[in-house]
């Protein structure tokens, strides 16, 4: 058991640290508004710089412009970026989740066309999966892609919670291509150019007042035959690959929202609070949870570096992290008072941001279902949608909601 770097890892860390030291002056600020195009451009330029130095997509295979390195190097890089107090890549979703999916399921032409510009921040990507009526039950997506005689597709429907859609060049979209088969079977994954005619992006303002994500509407958008990823009717399997990489991406960023030392520093600044038994008890309970997430993260990372794929149990860390981060923001705000809720305050931002994060990447309830069934082996909830064609299911739902 050893948390130290191996000599190779230490050498990698040193290399990264030196590069960041030499280049940090050209980095944009970590906090800026994604609604400001100048800020987005600055972040793109910074991603390009990182990519040119081999510090983006480090786990991608070399043949696609990556470094062919492992998860440990990715984490080392994240740690050094955080230490240098500079922002990381802009397109975390593209490079972390969608690019790996293209690498696994895309055609050679797709890989050759899309991966390079994605890596360099020239083309940012967004994930077009969730819909107003398909979140936890993702396979219930209703956005339709209808095949045309010339082999192209016509796309209609709506997606939601789409981070980065306002400046994305492409989206990876899960659509229903055959409503007359059971719902997991009639799905297909597409690459959608966000500047295509019929695509409309509208910002969704969140509790904080910022619009970090969007809703996206598709009105008879024409997609070429070669925009299909992973084959017609195979959309569910392709989507699962993205969700697997999503678990990894969320897992590696877990201390962004709940850092034991940031909370302790906020409490420690107030001599009365640090001697208050109730405050200390709340602090102790939160720090215990956050430390557990940190050290379980090391366990998961070790397993990952030995080639084990993270399973649904990774969801437990997310549940712990989000709830502990909420409790942390709550405690800090109790101690600091209303000033903690000033719009510019970090605790105010967290207070506003975390309730939504609870549902991101699966609600707590759906995570607990999945973990209960897949990890503990408990019997599944009875389902009313098994084996039923999607069109019939929809008809039944409509009937039930009317009566």
């Amino acid at each position: 058991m050893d948390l130290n770097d191996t000599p190779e890892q230490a050498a990698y860390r040193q290399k990264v640290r030196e590069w960041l030291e030499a280049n940090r002056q050209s980095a944009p600020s970590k906090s800026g508004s994604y609604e400001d195009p100048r800020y987005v451009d600055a972040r793109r330029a910074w991603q390009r710089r990182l990519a040119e130095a081999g510090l983006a997509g480090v786990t991608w295979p070399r043949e696609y412009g990556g470094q062919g390195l492992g998860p440990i190097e990715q984490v080392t890089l994240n740690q050094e970026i955080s230490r240098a107090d500079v922002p990381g890549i802009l397109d975390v979703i593209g490079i972390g989740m969608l690019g790996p999916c293209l690498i696994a399921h895309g055609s050679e032409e797709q890989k050759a066309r899309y991966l390079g510009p994605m890596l360099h921040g020239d083309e940012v990507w967004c994930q077009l999966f969730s819909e107003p009526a398909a979140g936890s039950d993702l396979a219930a997506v209703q956005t339709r892609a209808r095949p045309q005689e010339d082999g192209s597709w016509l796309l209609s429907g709506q997606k939601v919670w789409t981070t980065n859609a306002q400046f994305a060049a492409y989206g990876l979209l899960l659509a229903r291509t055959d409503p007359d088969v059971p719902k997991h079977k009639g799905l297909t994954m597409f690459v959608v150019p966000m500047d295509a005619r019929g695509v409309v992006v509208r910002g969704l303002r969140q509790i904080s007042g910022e619009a970090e994500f969007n809703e996206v509407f598709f009105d008879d958008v024409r997609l070429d035959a070669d925009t299909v990823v992973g084959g017609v009717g195979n959309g569910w399997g392709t989507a699962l690959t993205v969700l697997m990489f999503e678990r990894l991406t969320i897992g590696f960023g877990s201390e962004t929202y709940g850092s034991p030392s940031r909370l302790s520093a906020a409490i420690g600044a107030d001599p009365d609070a640090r001697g208050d038994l109730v405050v200390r008890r709340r602090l102790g309970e939160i720090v215990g949870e956050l430390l557990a997430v940190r050290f379980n993260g090391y366990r998961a990372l070790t397993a990952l570096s030995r080639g084990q794929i993270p399973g649904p149990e990774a969801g437990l860390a997310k549940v712990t992290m989000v709830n502990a981060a909420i409790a942390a923001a709550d405690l800090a705000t109790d101690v600091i008072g209303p000033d903690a809720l000033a719009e510019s305050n970090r605790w105010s931002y967290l207070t506003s941001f975390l309730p939504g994060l609870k549902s991101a990447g699966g609600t707590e309830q759906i995570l607990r279902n999945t973990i209960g069934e897949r990890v503990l082996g408990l019997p599944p909830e009875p389902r009313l949608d098994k084996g039923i064609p999607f069109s019939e299911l929809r008809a039944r739902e409509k009937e039930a909601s009317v009566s």
Partner: protein
Amino acid sequence: MNFALSDEQRFLREAAQGTLSRFKTIEAARGALEDGPAALPDLWPVAVDAGWPGLLIGEAHGGAGLGVFESLLVAEECGRVLASVPLLGLWPASAVLDAAGDGGALAAVAAGELRPAYVPARPPGDLDPGWTVEPRAGTRRAEAPRASVDGDEVELEGSACFVPDAPGAGLLVVVGESQDGRPVAAALAADAPGVSIEAVMRYDATRSLGHVSLASARGRRLAVPPGVLADAWYLAHALIAAESLGAAETCLELSVAYVKQRFTFGRAIGSYQAIKHELTEVLRQLENARGLQYYAGWAGSDRRAEFPLAASAARAVAGHALDFAARSMINVHGGIGATWEHDAPLFFRRAQLSRRLLGGTEDATDRLAERSLAEVA
């Protein structure tokens, strides 16, 4: 980065599991509740055969020279089956004796001929400047015994309550406080003049406890730095955490098995979200306790400065985890879970007493807050 058990650690754990499986320890726990501790099997010879007494003692003195992590793995296995092995008294005591290089006692302890018991003393904190021991009752902690150093000997005056594994021990490792507030450690023969140990049983018959009184009792001075004595306190916490984790794992295992086979309204009750989510919560707390056990085990050997934080975190989280797991086990079983017909009460009793020993999980939670505040000060 390598944060997984080594092959040797896995073998050690499996060996402990195999050794303990030869005894019906859970049945014995029920028997002891009815007929007293005499109904428990004597597991000391088994522990000696397995080499546990010398686990933390250096090879030079006949021990195995293993680390904190290994002791936690064995404690976890004992907790899993509610085995009554006096490890909580043994290991912190042997760690202090080993640090003091107390040759005579060490060889006998490592050979299993002399069983020592650690008399837990809490090191000073930011709210509480002195060394303290468990009081007989109430929230005010008792002052550690007064110690007067006399050459190589120490004379001790005072008492400490609810000392794990004190009854039947041959040697007591006591931390007293000298007139000028310094901690002084001493090894006292349990039958030395002025030493008295009153055996007490509280709620969990598998847990041997004793009230220790010292009236001008004399023992050998153990010359160790205060850090060693603080580490002994935190080692005891990490051991209680490990035991609790093991017991919580059994609670979850029994609960999961039951909810798969019990049907209501035509479905296994494990298919209901109310049940599924409660057991997922048990798993979540248990996995958190395991992550912190790894932290405590690693820090105990490789990062001593963080051991107080790690052990306090492990104790606090594992204490809650076992309490929650035991209550959930009763809940999902319905009425039968609250009767002696089932094993659930045995684990529940373990949970309720364990989380009140050595200052309790509340005190560990406060210490966790203190260490976390100190890290950023």
